[in-house]
Every structure is written in C-alpha cells, then in structure tokens.
C-alpha cells in the first residue's frame, strides 16, 4: 500500500490542445506537464480562460471537435497512454476509471429522468445487474443524501443545488473511479453548502483512496484541502508546489499578484494590488514569458526568452527568469504598487436613504381564477440605513432575499409594505413622473456584466441614456463632455464610446456599468454582487474603482454580496440576512470580529482563510451547518434559523427573537442574547 500511494496515477507530459480558428490556432493548452499520485488531491489553479478546464477535457478526450484537437503530448494513466486509445476503449475509461463532475449541477442532470435512473445508467454500464436498487441507495447514502430510498424517485428539479451536486458526485463515484476530475465543483454553490460538498469529497477520498484533480479559481478552496497544486496562466503551467510551499512562499510574480489582489480586512486602508493589462490572446506565438508585459519584475530576458523550469525546493518548481541563478528571490524584489487611501470617520455622516420594516411578498396564484394560495416571503420586514459616503454590506446566501431587498429599495420591485425614504422624501407612495424624476438619486450596478448592457447600443448611447431621461446635459457639447469625463473616471479610453459592449471584457463592461450609473450623479448606488462574475485580479480593479469613487464623490453603497472577503475590505456596516430577515447588523469590525448570531458565526467560519506567509496554519474553528436554506414560502416557525442552528433551544421553535442591542449599534436577533 505504501509504495502504491507514492506512485503516479496520472502522468501528463507536454500535452498541447489547439483550437483551429482562422490563420493561427489558439493554443489553449500549451505543453502542460504534471503528475497526480495515488490518493492525493491535486489542484489546477487559474483565472477564467487560462485553459484549466480544457486540460481536464483533454485528459478525458472530450475536447469539442472538430474545432479543437490534441496535437501533442501523452497522458499516462496507470502506465497506459490514453491518447493512443480508440474512442471505444476510451469509453471504458470515462466514468469507470476516471470520472468528472462539472460546475453547474443544474444543467448536468437530465431533467426528465429520476436521479435513481441516472445512477443506474452508470452502474449498468459496469455490468452489475443484480441488487441495483440496494446499490443505488447505498451510493446515495454515501454522499449524504437524507432518506435515500425515497429520494431515489425524485426528479432533479425537486432537489436543491447542493443536493444536485451531491447526486452528481454520487453518479461520478458510482463506478468507483481511480481519479475524480472536479471542474469548479462548488463555484455555483453558497459558502455553507460549498463547505459541505468539499468535506464530502474529502471524506470519500479518505474512504476510497481515489485521487482528485480539482480545478478552481478560488485560492480559498485550495488553501484548505489540496496536497499539491499547479498554477496555470495563458495555457501554460507556471508554478508547481505543495500547498505548504505555495502558501508560505509562492514564487511566480503572477501567483504573488493573485494573493495581493485578494481583498480582506487587513487591506482596508490600502488599495488592492492589481495586475495591469489583459491575458495575451492565445493565438499569438510567444517568444518570451507570457506574463512579461504585465509583470513589474520583468527584465530583458523575459521579453525574448521562454523561461524554463527552475527548481526551488523539493517539488516546488517555477517558470520564471527571476530564479535563474537563485533558489529564492529577495522579498524586496516584489514591490507593492498598492497605495494607502484615507478613510473617513463613520458616525459623523448623515443618513441618505433608509428603509423601515420593508416587506416584499410575492403572491402565489393557483387555479382557474388565480386565487392567491400563499406568499413567497422574499423580504420580510427589514430596516436599513445608508449613510453618506459609506458602504453597507448586505450579506447572505443565495435565495435569502438580498437582491430583492436591493431592488425594493430602488422601487424596481414595489414593496408590499414598509417605507423607503430618500432623505425626507417617502418613495413607496410615489408613482409615475415624480418617482422617475427622483430616480437620478439612486442607481444600481448588476452582477452579470454581459446582460447589463444593451448589446445593440454603443457605449456612448448607453451612457447618455440616463442623462437624457433625467435631462442632465443641457446641450450636445455638455453631454459629450460628461461622457468623456465619465469614461476617464472609470479608467476607460475615450474611443470606447463609439464601440459596442461585446468588444469589451467582463471587467471593462463592469466599468461601463459603473460609469452609466454615475452619469446621473447618484447619492446611493446599490451594487448587486458586482464582482462575483469577475476574476480575482479584475475584482481588485473594480473594488479599487468603487472605493476611489466613494471617496471622491461621497456616494453611499448598498453592497449586496455573499463574498465575505469583499465585505471585509469594503464595508463600514454589515447586515446579515437570513430568509428575508436581518439577523445581525452593526459596524463591520464588530460583526466580523465578534459575531454574535450563530448563523453569522457559521457563515464566517465556512469561509476558507488564506493567510499568505503565515507558516503556522490556524484555521478558524469550523462550524458546519447542516441542511440548506428553507423555502421562503413556508418559513420555519419561531426563529427562521432554528432547524439548522447548532445551539437551538425550545424557545427558538416558538417565537421569533426580538432585537438585542449590544454596544449601542450592534443589533442581533437571537434568543441566546435575550436572557
């Protein structure tokens, strides 16, 4: 057993996958080599478009053809070259010895088959006809699905996202593969569910001894549960290390930048480091280091000599010219570009917008006469105060009603009850023209940079829209001048206004969205997860921009997010939402450092921590939540959180807890504090 665990299960050598398009092919995977040992977890880390998913598909020989093809290399799996296998032979490898789970559990399951049937499909290929039922139940139980004998006959839509991903894992594991390829398995899931799924994978790995190839962009996931990892950039692996080595001393300037770009509590008073420029197009023939023109440490050989591997320590290798003669590079080489920024005092600011007892209930209609048979209690009585020049973060899992709350605040969804006041003006009673005229004061930035800009309008027209609706520019010249200054403010070139949104990258589109919101000079901007669709380095640029604009223009943000590290970086105040209600609210430091509600505690502890350079790893004591967010149609009686709460008491099942005020501003709704 001992010698088996150290042997290589998979050995990839010089694998290249190209996509033919026009004159020069896209080298999506460019001479990638790595090994995976028996029973270990190996991570491929990289930003979107760096070729990590395509590497995984190449291993399975599932590269979309005829556009893409594997042009060179070898994939030795249990000492046999898979690239020499015929398609028929390969089918016995896929799903049996090498299985894969995908990012999106919603689309990976067939909606018209029960989950039992879908697992049976895999088992039958294996030739086991007997005791299928028992086997399926056993498989489902193994991935922690409660009551598997009944769930067997459920259809995918009857399961939640986390459950679906568990079923996907069950399907992948049904044939007991030796290698599981997990392509961003938790990206579509909430933090608490993500923790459950990752724990499950680790647990199964310990039981069965299979190896996992984890593909992710999330440094947090890597920090927690990986043995070794490789960093990919522009189709190439640029650094390979064990987890310890990587987190204590990452070597490549790109890896360093990724750490520096992460937002967090301790960076509040500085700008985040960003990587300037873009990933080079993959259809160029690289003469030097492909990171050279974005690298601040670039020197002469970087431009015209492709860097070779340099070994730093046992198993730690890096492709960088900095390490030609040295084993380690002086820390001073990595200069920080992040500038400190001034933050203002919090309490002195006036309240710009506030919501009192805001409720949004969506009626559920049924039957011939569309009788109302119930309500979705999306937002169920929340109080919010936005202060001038400050950021209030609204945190919660998906489905807790935070986006609805944001839109209700802006009257994009009309609230069912409660009041929203902009300074002294009540908004909920306004309609038509008076409301439209006030809309200049509050704006919104959306999550998805691709659906938030009309693809049929030029950027200039998009920016003009708000000005025209609000009659802000009095003349053509003035409007033009405003567009120019807006583009400058968000750091876009002036000729961008004559181009269409599809010509820009995600980060640039998000800048355009921000410029569009700024065009009407708002006092309040609701930011609805503006960075969750962006890569870490682009996220840093966007966060820097938002912070800069807040300081310059004194705008208040309502920042809706599930990303705790962004909250730590940006927020002055935090409101934690659970199933339509706010369970904890207060100044950022208090909520983050001494959370009092069990849900907040669990939420914070589920976030993987990355402490760069800290050699002693001290993770927070993890509180793992059972189950998932209940349905907002039938919220649990008493405290909404009681079915999942680790400290539940009798009282919690009876009544909803009242507000307990701690230290003046820290409000918590929990029975633990009322005693």
């Amino acid at each position, binding site marked *: 057993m001992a010698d088996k665990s150290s042997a290589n299960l998979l050995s990839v050598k010089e694998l290249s996958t190209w996509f033919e398009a026009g004159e020069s092919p896209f080298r999506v995977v460019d001479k990638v080599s790595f090994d995976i040992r028996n029973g270990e977890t190996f991570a491929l880390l990289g930003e979107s478009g760096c070729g990590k998913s395509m590497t995984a598909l190449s291993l399975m020989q599932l590269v979309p053809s005829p556009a893409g093809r594997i042009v060179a290399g070898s994939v030795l799996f249990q000492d046999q070259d898979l690239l020499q296998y015929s398609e028929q032979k390969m089918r016995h490898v896929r799903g049996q010895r090498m299985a894969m789970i995908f990012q999106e559990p919603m689309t990976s399951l067939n909606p018209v088959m029960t989950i039992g049937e879908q697992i049976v499909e895999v088992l039958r290929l294996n030739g086991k006809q007997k005791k299928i039922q028992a086997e399926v139940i056993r498989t489902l139980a193994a991935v922690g699905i409660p009551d598997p004998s009944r769930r067997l006959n459920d259809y995918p839509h009857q399961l939640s996202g986390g459950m679906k991903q568990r079923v996907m894992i069950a399907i992948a594991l049904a044939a007991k593969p030796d290698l599981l390829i997990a392509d961003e398995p938790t990206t579509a899931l909430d933090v608490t569910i993500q923790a459950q799924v990752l724990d499950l994978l680790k647990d199964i790995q310990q039981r069965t001894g299979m190896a996992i190839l984890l593909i992710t962009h999330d440094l947090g996931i890597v920090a927690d549960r990986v043995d070794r990892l490789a960093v990919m950039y522009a189709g190439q692996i640029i650094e390979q290390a064990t987890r310890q080595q990587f987190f204590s001393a990452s070597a490549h300037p790109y890896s360093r930048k990724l750490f520096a770009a992460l937002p967090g509590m301790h960076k509040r008073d500085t700008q985040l480091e960003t990587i300037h420029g873009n990933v080079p197009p993959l259809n160029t023939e690289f003469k030097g280091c492909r990171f050279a023109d974005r690298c601040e440490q670039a020197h002469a050989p970087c431009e015209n000599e492709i860097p070779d591997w340099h070994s730093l320590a046992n198993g730690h290798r890096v492709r960088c010219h900095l390490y030609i003669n040295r084993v380690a590079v002086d820390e001073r080489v990595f200069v920080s570009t992040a500038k400190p920024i001034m933050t203002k005092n919090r309490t002195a600011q006036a309240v710009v917008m506030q919501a009192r007892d805001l409720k949004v209930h969506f009626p559920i209609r049924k039957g011939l006469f569309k009788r109302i048979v119930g309500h979705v209690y999306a937002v169920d009585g929340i109080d919010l105060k936005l202060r001038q020049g400050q950021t209030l973060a609204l945190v919660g899992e998906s489905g807790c009603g935070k986006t609805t709350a944001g839109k209700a605040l802006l009257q994009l969804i009309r609230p069912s009850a409660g009041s929203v006041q902009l300074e002294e003006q009540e908004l909920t009673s306004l309609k038509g023209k008076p409301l439209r005229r006030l*809309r200049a004061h509050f704006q919104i930035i959306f999550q*998805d940079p691709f*659906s938030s800009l009309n693809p049929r309008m030029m950027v200039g027209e998009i920016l003009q*829209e708000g000005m025209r609706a609000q009659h802000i520019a009095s003349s053509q010249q003035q409007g033009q001048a405003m567009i120019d200054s807006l583009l400058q403010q968000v750091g876009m070139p002036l000729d961008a206004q004559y181009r269409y949104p599809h010509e820009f990258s995600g980060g640039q589109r998000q800048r355009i969205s921000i410029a569009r919101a700024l065009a009407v000079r708002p006092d309040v901007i609701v930011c609805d997860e503006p960075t969750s669709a962006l890569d870490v380095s682009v996220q840093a640029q966007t966060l820097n921009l938002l912070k800069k604009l807040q300081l310059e223009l004194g705008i208040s943000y309502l920042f809706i997010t599930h990303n705790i590290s962004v909250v730590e970086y940006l927020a002055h105040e935090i409101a934690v939402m659970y199933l339509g209600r706010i369970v904890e609210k207060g100044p950022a430091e208090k909520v983050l450092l001494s959370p009092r509600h069990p849900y907040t505690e669990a939420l914070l502890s589920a976030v993987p921590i990355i402490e760069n350079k800290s050699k002693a790893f001290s993770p927070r004591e993890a509180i793992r939540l059972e189950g998932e967010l209940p349905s907002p149609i039938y919220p649990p009686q008493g405290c909404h959180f009681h079915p999942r709460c680790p400290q539940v008491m009798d009282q919690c099942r009876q009544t909803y807890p009242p507000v307990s005020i701690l230290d003046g501003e820290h409000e918590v709704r929990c029975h633990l504090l009322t005693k």
Partner: protein
Amino acid sequence: MQAMRKKFWFAPLLIVFSATLLLVLLPGLLGVKPVVLWTDRFIYLLVAMGIFLGAYIRHKPHLRLPWRHVLNNRRALLALVILCAYILVGLLDSIHYRQPLPGENANNGEKLYSVEVFSALDGVLSHLRKHVEKTYSSPFAYQLYAMETMVASDGSQYRAYPRLKYAAAYLQDPANQRAEDILSKLLLGAAQGLIIIAVLFLLLLTYLARRQSVSFKQAWQQCWQAESAASLRVVLYTLAVLIVLSSIVWKLSFFYHVFGTDKVGQDVLYLTLKSIRTGLVIGTLTTLIMLPFAILLGIMAGYFRGWVDDLIQYIYTTLSSVPGILLIAAAVLSIQVYMANHPELFESVRDQADLKLLALCVVLGITSWTGLCRLLRGETLKLREMDYIQAATAFGVGHFTIIVRHLLPNVLHIVLIMVVLDFSGLVLAEAVLSYVGVGVDPSTISWGNMINGARLELAREPVVWWSLVAAFVFMFTLVLAANLFSDAVRDAFDPRLTLRGKS
C-alpha cells in the same frame, strides 16, 4: 464620424425622392395618364421602407455583420439574384397608366384616355398581350389544340386543326420548317443575350477600374481571380444565365407561344409573368399589414404582463383556434358581397379587382400575425428581465422609450427571419385560396387562378398540361429562391451557428 452616424437616412431619402420625381414626370413625357392603384401605393411604401431599412442596416454594425454573412453565402446570393429578377418584373407591373385615345381631342381640348389600365409590363409585353388565339394551343404549336370544322375553298366542309393566327403564321410548311426556325431564333436570342452581358460586363469593369483607380486589365484580373470577388462572380454567372434565358424566350415569344395558350387563347407566358406581381403583393403586403399587430402586441404582452398580456393572449389564442381557411373564406365572401352591392365606389373593374386583392392581404395579415406575436412575446418576456432593462427603469426612462430603444432592436432579428420565412408560405397560400375559390378576383391574373383553370382540363384527353406546368415552374422558382434565402438569413442571425469574429 459623428456626422456620418447621424445621417444614415440622407442617401435613401435622395433615392426615394428622385424615384418619385421620375414616376411623376415620366408619364407626362410619354403622354399617358398615370393611375395609382391601392396596392401600388402600398408597394411604393414598401419599397421606400426597404430602402430606409437597408440604409439603417448598413449603419448598424450588429445588423450589418449577419447580412454580410448572407451575402458571402453563394447559394443565398444566387437566390437573391433570382428574387431580384422577380421583384423587377413585379415592380414594372406596378406602374399603371391609361393610354390616350388616338386622335380624339374632343370637348374643350381635353384629352381622352382609354378606360383600360395598363402597367409598364403590359407595355413591354404588348405583343404577347395582343397575340390572342382562339383557344388552347400547346407550346410552340402552329395550330390549335382542338379540331374544327372548316369550309374548304370548294365549299365542302372538313375537320382539321386550324392554323394559329399569330404563332408561326409566316411558315409555309410548318411541320417541316418549324424545328429549324425555332433553332435559328433560339441562337439569335442567345447571341443577343451574350451581347447584352458583354456590354454590362464592360460597364462594370469600367466602374470598378474607375473606383479603385486601377487599369482596366487589373480590374479584369481582380474580377476573375481575387478571392474577395467570389461573391461577385456568383452574381455574374447567375445574371448571365438569367439574361441569356430571358433573351431567348423574349426572341421566341414574338413568333411562338412559348408556354402555349389558355382556354380563351391568351398567351400563358404573359399570364405567368403577370402573376408574379400578384404573388409578390400577397407575400409582402400581408407582412406589412401583419407586422404592426405582431410587433406592437407581442412586445406589449411580454413587457407589461398582467392584464395586457392576458387580453392579448386571449385574442390570439381565440384567433388561432378558428380554422384559418374558414375565417378567410367568410371575410372574403362578405367583402365580395359588399363590393357587389356598392359598385359606385369603384372607378373601374380593375380598381375593384385590385381592392379585392388588397382585402385578401388584409384578411391574410389579420389571421397570420399570431405566430410572430407569440414568438415576440416569449422573447420579450426573456428580455424584460435583462439587467439593462432594469437599469433603464432605474434611470426613470419611460415605457415607450424602453420598448423602442431597448426591446425593439433586440427582437428585430426575429422579425426579419419570420418575414422572410413567411413570404414563401403566403405565396403558396394565395395559390391554395384561389384554387378553393376564396382567393383573388377571377379577373386578376394569378398562379392560383391559372392552376384553378387548368384543373378542369387535366381530366380531358389529351391533357392540357402547360398552364399548370408554367404556373408551377414560376411559383416553384420563386418559393425555392425565397426559402434558400431565408435559410441563409436564419443561419446568419443564429448566434449558435455563426462564430462571430472579433470584427
């Protein structure tokens, strides 16, 4: 750049204006009285709209790109050339006038005009119009299809096939001379066609050489060898074949009935050419009438939801659950009765037939908007949830502006695809309806009426097949071309099928 962006409508306006001027001035010069029928007005409107739409598409990159894909598709280009030929015939047939009566300058010097309304096409094809035989004759025949009792010079009666009045009348011994005669006329026609092509090609080369300021020889080489001129060559080949064919038919039509004659001796070639306009009018005017309903109601239903949506859905589900043909029959019949009872409303029989054609378009339009409306409603339902619509709402932009600026441009590709797809269906629908007897006026020349007329003769022995075949060939070519073209349009606008470059 900005000046360019603003004035995309300038060039089309100029074109439309000069075309109107030409239409107004030309009849005066030729000494005829212009007549503008109701369908003509709509056709002119449609042409003007087409010109403006073309300019708009040129001006908007997101629309221009897919159209460039269409124009790079050889099959689509071939289909487009054929469609253009049909449209040319249809347009010629849509310029109507009344000829002055000869000599009569009666009462107070006012000119008198004939009651008959002719079109420009009638003018061009006057020999075909006038060559009316007694009854059926087969293609290229020199005698009638039916025997007649004739009186010989000695007074005795005998039964024989009488010679035709116009076709091959000059031949002494048609049975032996005809083949040779046809061949010589055919070669002559082909030669004429080739000369026309040569002249046209020389003009094109001169234009190209002038525009790109290269020598004549270089332009020639570019035209035949350059990769970029591949689509130009497709157009040239198709045009060449088309011109040679029509030149041959044109030449022969003076001496023979190329497609034979029908029951009352009218030339079938003339009838099929006249039918083109009817087919095009039905195919395009119906769309014109249907579009406002479909677009407005579809977008409104999807955007406003609630009771507006309920009402519009109720209307179109009701409408589409009534059997279409019944609805059309009822509407057409009631219009017929109304027209019969109010003859004073119409200047001429032609006018009446024309209005009936228009009425058919309206009825077809009213019954066929539901499909597009449903599609647009669905698409709008999807689009209204897009963040940019929400962003516009957050700016306080009004509903109407949102519909015009955000929704309409984003559903326009669906409208385009549906219009092109519907066209061929409507041309066929006309034929079916006329066959059933609820289509166009019997006096209107249409493929449907031709097929209806030929139907009865299919039973006789020997069979009269040519009017059916002629109508079928022309209709088939049009519908096939339209379908090929619409396929290309649909593919070009389908984001899943085209890998859009970063242009």
